[in-house]
């Protein structure tokens, strides 16, 4: 009840601040990066403004001052001026809590479109003052708050919801602090040149997959199959580990993979051009699904798309290479 009254009284205070904040930030944005590598927060990169409670604090001081004048209370002046001094000190300390930190953006792991890209900013404190309660504003998840102890490097994590495939850049990041007393907020607003690779959304398992022509295009000279054991060959990175001959490994200290012939060939080409009539994004989605399935099944698969061909293989790196090709595919001006 009380709070709602105060709320209503305090609400207009918030808006001028907000109105002020946006253009100021737009103006300041010009000097905010992007910075790759380590950036030290010097004077021109740390901004400070009163918070909402800080504005109310100013009004409190004015009322105390007027009261002291009206009633001619000397100690009232003293209290008012002491609190005004406290406000000043708070401003300097809040600014100090942010200034001089070193920031470095770290890359995020690739995600599929629509998933959360998880970033981390490394804050390094080379000064002799601990930095307290530094946070990202709530619009980033999960609103982590950290301290940066003297001489240490601490990671400040945050996640962003991705939407489209390609390279995702979270843009300028606002890192802020209200320590020690919350009357001021000091922040920096820098583009740390952070990127996350966003793979296309995989298509649904059922329905969307178009049959693959396994015979299309170039074939390896020796047809490999899965059914008939045809001897051993030296294991090559990227081959599915299920095919390693553990007996031989135990005997010789070297890895051999079993070679099979005959049966259905486990080699497949995931081919842009065989997917029939559909949009480019759809194709990418379907191909993503196919890559995931082939990888999971341990099959050898290759990727063929406009201007790109990746030789069949299997493994985490290969998977990433294929998905990256899909993620970064640029439609050369044609409507897919």
């Amino acid at each position, binding site marked *: 009840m009380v*709070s709602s009254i105060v709320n209503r009284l305090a609400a207009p205070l918030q808006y001028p601040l907000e109105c002020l904040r946006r253009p100021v930030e737009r103006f300041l944005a010009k000097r905010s990066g992007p910075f790759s590598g380590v950036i030290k927060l010097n004077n021109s990169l740390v901004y400070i403004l009163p918070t909402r409670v800080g504005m109310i604090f100013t009004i409190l001081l004015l*009322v105390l001052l007027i009261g002291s*004048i009206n*009633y*001619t209370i000397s100690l009232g002046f003293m*209290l008012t001026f*002491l609190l005004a001094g406290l406000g000043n000190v708070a401003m300097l*300390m809040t600014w100090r809590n942010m200034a001089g930190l070193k920031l470095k953006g770290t890359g995020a792991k690739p995600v599929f479109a629509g998933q959360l890209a998880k970033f981390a900013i490394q804050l390094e404190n080379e000064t002799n003052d601990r930095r307290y309660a530094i946070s990202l504003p709530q619009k980033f998840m999960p609103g982590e708050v950290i301290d940066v102890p003297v001489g240490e490097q601490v990671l400040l994590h945050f996640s962003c919801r991705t939407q489209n495939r390609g390279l995702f850049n979270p843009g300028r990041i606002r890192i802020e602090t209200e320590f020690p*007393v*919350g009357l001021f907020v000091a922040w920096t607003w820098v583009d740390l040149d952070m990127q996350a690779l966003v793979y296309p959304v995989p298509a649904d398992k059922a329905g969307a997959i178009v049959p693959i022509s396994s015979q299309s295009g170039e074939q390896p000279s020796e047809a490999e199959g899965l059914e008939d054991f045809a001897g051993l060959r030296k294991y090559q990175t990227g081959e599915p580990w299920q095919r390693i001959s553990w007996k031989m490994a135990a005997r010789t200290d070297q890895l051999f993979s079993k070679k099979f012939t005959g049966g259905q060939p486990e080699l497949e080409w995931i081919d842009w051009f065989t997917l029939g009539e559909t949009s480019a994004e759809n194709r990418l989605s379907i191909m993503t699904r196919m890559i995931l399935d082939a990888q999971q099944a341990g099959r050898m698969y290759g990727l063929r798309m406009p201007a790109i061909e990746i030789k069949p293989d299997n493994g985490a790196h290969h998977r990433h290479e294929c998905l990256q090709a899909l993620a970064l595919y640029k439609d050369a001006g044609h409507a897919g």
Partner: protein
Amino acid sequence: MPADSHKLWALLAGIMLVTVPFFPRIPLPVTALSLIMALWLAAMLLNKIRQPDKWQRAGLLLLAILVMSVSFGTLLGRDAGTGFLILLAFLKMLEINGKRDVYIVVYVEYFLIASNFFHTQSPWVALYVFATVIYLTSILILFNDKISTLDTRRRLMIASRMILQATPFMLVLFILFPRIPGPLWGLPKDAQAAVTGLSNSMSPGSVSSLIESEEIAFRVRFAGQIPPHSDLYWRGPVFSRYDGQTWEADNAFGKATANLIKGEKGKTIQYTVTLEPHQRNWLFALNYPVNLQDSGYRLTREVQLLSRKKINSVTRYSLTSDSGIRNHSLSGYERTKNLWLPDTDSLNQKTIALARQWRQLVGEDDRRVIDRALRYFNEQPFVYTLNPPLLGNDAMDDFLFETRRGFCEHYSSAFVYLARAAGIPARIVTGYQGGEKNPVDEYLIIRQSSAHAWAEIWIDGTGWQRVDPTAAVSPDRIESGIQDAVAERDLLPTILLGGNSILLGLRYRWDSFNYRWDEWVIGFNRERQFELFKKLGFANIDWQGMVIGMVVLLALVGTLIGLWIFWQGAGARQDRLKQAYDRLCQKLAKTGISKNNTEGPTEYFSRMRHKLTPASASKARGLIQYYLALRYGMASSPDRQRQFIKSVRRFTPHLK
């Protein structure tokens, strides 16, 4: 609940710290409701009770308003406003729901701290303000230290340092901020605390009730010697209207001035009075102040010194009084007024008869009538006492012929009554008599206990003349002070009674400090501001200059505090271990082989050891191993570091 309970405990401690000083002064129901809400919060934090829901809170608010209207009848005004703020703060505590609520509580607490100043502005209160502001700041830190790194001690340390850094800002603003004389608008009726002091009327008991008060009315510093006790009649309100019970001032004269004439050669006395606020317009002066043209004060027709505004803050004024001045103002109207007695046909017949009898005995000479009256007081068994019996309708008859026990108001009013009955214009003057010398600092303390009432009579050719009938009854009262004059010493303020001399010395020192506090802190106003600048050599400073000075000094202080805040962290604290190691290397460089920048301690040592004597070499190796252990080993501790630093300081390499 969003905030952790330990944070709310701290907030509860804060609100108690701020409100407890009010509890003895505010009505009991307000205190009771506050404590109930405090207990509710405590129970809530111990998980015994839930946080009150919307309806319970609305109920509490209604209850608070009810308690307020029962106790005060209003929500406005100084006392009611304070009471309501206290209740609102506790109510807010029960519905804390995030950061903003915490700030509202803290801000209300700032107001409550300020409300204390209506009551007192002693140095203790100033200390209390600092302590409380430090604690409230530590609460704000608590709520902003989001991952709770800091313990209470560290929080209080940070808060104390912040307040220490805020103090220079405060001093600059306090001294240089332009002091606009208040009030800016009308003050509420109860704007100022009820104060003890003389009132604008006098009836039996009104002066003697002040005697028990140790409170200070004013302090006086004289330019020269302090005059003798018996000359110190501090003239205050003058009363000439009497209704049978009460003496009151006659306000018929408006702005008419007194007819003051320089009589025989008298002494001039210069002195400065620092008057405590008493919410009245009158000031106190010795007979009679002169040269008031520039002071802003004026003398009434009855020679009362008046200020235009009520004295609601400590006021300092300098006066010159000339004891040779005579007051010759008596118009026909005044003569009538100062002879008038109520109901002379029925009241106090015995008194009137006595006065007429004296007149018949001594004839025309007024002075001889006065002498008779004073002799009467002196010879009859009158007792000077703080506990006089009650008087009836014929108050003068009762007092003069029956009880004969009274205080100065009894004697002065009986005397004036007798004089008037005998046809001599007479009136009552109230004020203070005497004063207590502070031996530490050579000034005079005038406490409420020095309140006094005396008489003034008109003698043709001489003018108004002071007569103090109390002196006839109890000469000690006038010669040395109240403490030697009354029987009921246990009713007097203990400070008047002397006793332990060390304690008394401390008390005088404390009073001397309070005097300066009153003059320079509490009484710091526009006049003092300019006076200070004059003392500092800026005699011609004006407002603009003062404001410019303030801005410049604030910028300077801001820069210095900023540098302090920034440099305390910016590597100002060097690595002491490294310093000691560097010093060791410097000492070893005397061998002629100095350390390369890229060289580790061991490599350097092996390169230069052949230059040292075996004893020196083994000492140096010991130190280098010690350094490595401290730097890279697990066994480092501040004590060992200190020991290493000490050993390095003692070490001197000897060359082969």
